[in-house]
């Protein structure tokens, strides 16, 4: 494929042939074309621009990633229902978008996630228990971003796209050939920060891939409340290519993201990938989607399930047997147990952690308040001791 030829700028009407297809301006009815390599029925299809050739091991690996991620996600929801987590943002339905794109990254690439990228974290070898700390309320993230080149979860929508762009500007300054990938959603596409990230990335030709998981819903607001054009088409206005990929097709997501990262690495600048997917669950465990969307819509998307689709392909091709599935089931159970046990035994931080790491170089006021609060807390110990010694009034 050649994303070079799609360097956008002109209005879609002037585009022709290859450029038009890659930019996705060609429409089937009202829906624009999306890159697909595996149909919902598990049929392998070819695409003019994007191709992929994976070994049976790699295919089984993607299946395993998606199943384990889904199981981890289900376990987290359960833990929330049991009161072990304060909140959980489920990725159900977005496994292909996350595993496919995450597996496209190299270890030296850098990932800037939102708060729902549990599958991407999995591909970066971030311990799932690390992700649960903030949802249990023991920290606000806390893992070392540089250990796996996976930045902390970002809750304020779209802010991280600018961090990713700045990081990518630094990569380019260093003369490194790494790429950066910024995750965001359809809701975030309305944020000014995302537009500014597009502008900066384009102006400085930063090696960053903007990966939008359009899961159709920003809590209760459908994509129509965010945009009049398909999101990937926004890239054209900023002067870089955009492409829509079937976000429930792990092969297509992997192929497109690999190409986009390569585009960035090879000095051609940013690219926008819109993974067209669906949030099968609620926005978070506090949300009730029955208030704003119809069951039929969800049922329709169930027919496009990313895991069932790959399984259908593996089965048709005879690439996986019962023993394989049984082993994955066993691994899932073990992961779930590890997560359950890990969360339940996760310790609350020490009270004085409130004052830790507010500053790197220290701050007189923090020191003063820490000392005062410690003294205040110690006064209760004195009272307790006094009471125990039997001295009352």
């Amino acid at each position: 494929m050649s994303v070079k030829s799609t360097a956008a700028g002109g209005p879609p009407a002037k585009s022709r042939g290859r450029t038009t297809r890659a930019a996705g301006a060609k429409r089937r009815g009202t829906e624009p074309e999306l890159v697909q390599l595996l149909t919902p029925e598990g049929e392998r299809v070819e695409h003019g621009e994007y191709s992929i050739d994976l070994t049976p091991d790699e295919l089984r690996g993607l299946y395993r990633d998606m199943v384990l991620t889904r199981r981890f996600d289900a376990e987290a929801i359960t833990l929330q229902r049991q009161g072990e987590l304060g909140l959980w943002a489920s990725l159900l339905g977005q496994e292909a978008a996350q595993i496919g794109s995450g597996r496209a990254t190299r270890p030296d690439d850098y990932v800037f996630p939102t708060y729902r990228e549990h599958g991407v974290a999995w591909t970066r070898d971030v311990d799932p228990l690390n992700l649960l700390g903030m949802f249990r309320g023991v920290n606000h993230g806390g893992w070392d971003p540089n250990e796996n080149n996976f930045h902390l979860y970002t809750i304020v929508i779209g802010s991280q796209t600018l961090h990713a762009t700045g990081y990518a500007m630094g990569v380019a300054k260093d003369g490194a050939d790494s790429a950066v990938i910024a995750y965001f959603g359809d809701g975030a596409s309305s944020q000014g920060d995302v537009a500014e990230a597009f502008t900066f990335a384009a102006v400085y030709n930063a090696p960053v891939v903007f990966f939008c998981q359009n899961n159709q819903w920003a809590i209760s607001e459908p994509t129509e409340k965010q945009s009049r054009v398909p999101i990937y088409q926004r890239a054209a206005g900023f002067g870089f290519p955009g492409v829509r990929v079937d976000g429930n097709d792990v092969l297509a997501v992997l192929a497109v993201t690999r190409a986009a990262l390569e585009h960035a690495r090879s000095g051609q600048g940013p690219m926008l990938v819109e993974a067209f997917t669906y949030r099968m669950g609620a926005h978070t465990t506090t949300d009730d989607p029955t208030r704003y969307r119809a069951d039929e819509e969800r049922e329709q998307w169930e027919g496009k399930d990313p895991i069932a689709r790959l399984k259908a392909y593996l089965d048709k091709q005879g690439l996986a047997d019962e023993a394989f599935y049984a082993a994955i089931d066993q691994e899932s159970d073990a992961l779930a147990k590890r997560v359950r046990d890990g969360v339940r035994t996760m310790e609350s931080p020490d009270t004085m952690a409130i004052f830790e790491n507010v500053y790197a170089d220290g701050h007189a006021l923090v020191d003063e308040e820490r000392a005062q609060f410690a003294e205040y807390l110690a006064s209760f110990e004195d009272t307790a001791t006094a009471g125990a010694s039997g001295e009352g009034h």
Partner: protein
Amino acid sequence: MTQMAIAKALNESLRKALESDPKVLVMGEDVGKLGGVFRITDGLQKDFGEGRVIDTPLAESGIVGTAIGLALRGYRPVVEIQFDGFVFPAYDQIVTQLAKMHARALGKVKLPVVIRIPYAGGIGAVEHHSESPEALFAHVPGLKVITPSNASDAYWMLQQAIECDDPVIFLEPKRRYWDKGEVDTSALPGSPHQAVVAQQGTDLTLAAYGPMVKVCLEAAAAAANEGRSLEVVDLRSLSPIDFDTLQASVEKTGRLVVVHEAPVFYGSGAEIAARITERCFYHLEAPVLRVGGFHAPYPPARLEEEYLPGLDRVLDAVDRALAF
């Protein structure tokens, strides 16, 4: 020892930082060829190149947001916000992201980002060019806020801000840019967070920072003519505030007037009054008084002389404090 204006001292300071650390970057609107609207970055792009002195798109959130990303990559960005009133598009990135990231990463990443903001009034500008937003930053844990009042501090405190591993809001008193002073570029500076006694006195303490230090020194000179001895403390740092130095001064004089351009209501003077009252309750001969801006938008330029705390308003507060 060299005589230079604050603007030149800042320029020299940036030059030295760019020379001594290849990770230092200067970025902002018009900081390149133009040298910034106040010429603070004059000549830097010519000498250090477009890769290190970066003209950015006109998007303040984007400037600070990408500076955060560059810092995460190991750079030390020095961001210029063109005017005080233009910082608010970046306020979210500063408050929500920059200030908190070190803590939420449990110290595993550092954010050495300096945000330079020409602030405060007195230059006859149009709207949004004369504001004093220091309290809005000092209120945010994770940020440090400092502001020089003279050329020597401008030179050294900017160096220190750039060397600091925390985000620093560096407020430049724009109407003092052309004020000259002695700068010793070889002397070792003290902490940027230490207040200094700019003028010794015995009857009352004036606490000020940035553009108001000069006004207070003039007030002290005028008061001296009437036989009153005023001490002037230049706070230099608003987060943290060096209350020890201020306390020592107030214990000596027994009276305190805090002076700033920002609106008095919820301003830094309120914090200072509360803390000093707590620390010096038995030394105070009068309540801590404040002189500053009103709870009204910064007025049109034709009214700013009346709006801004000047010699007479400071001396009026001094009279009131001494009358207790």
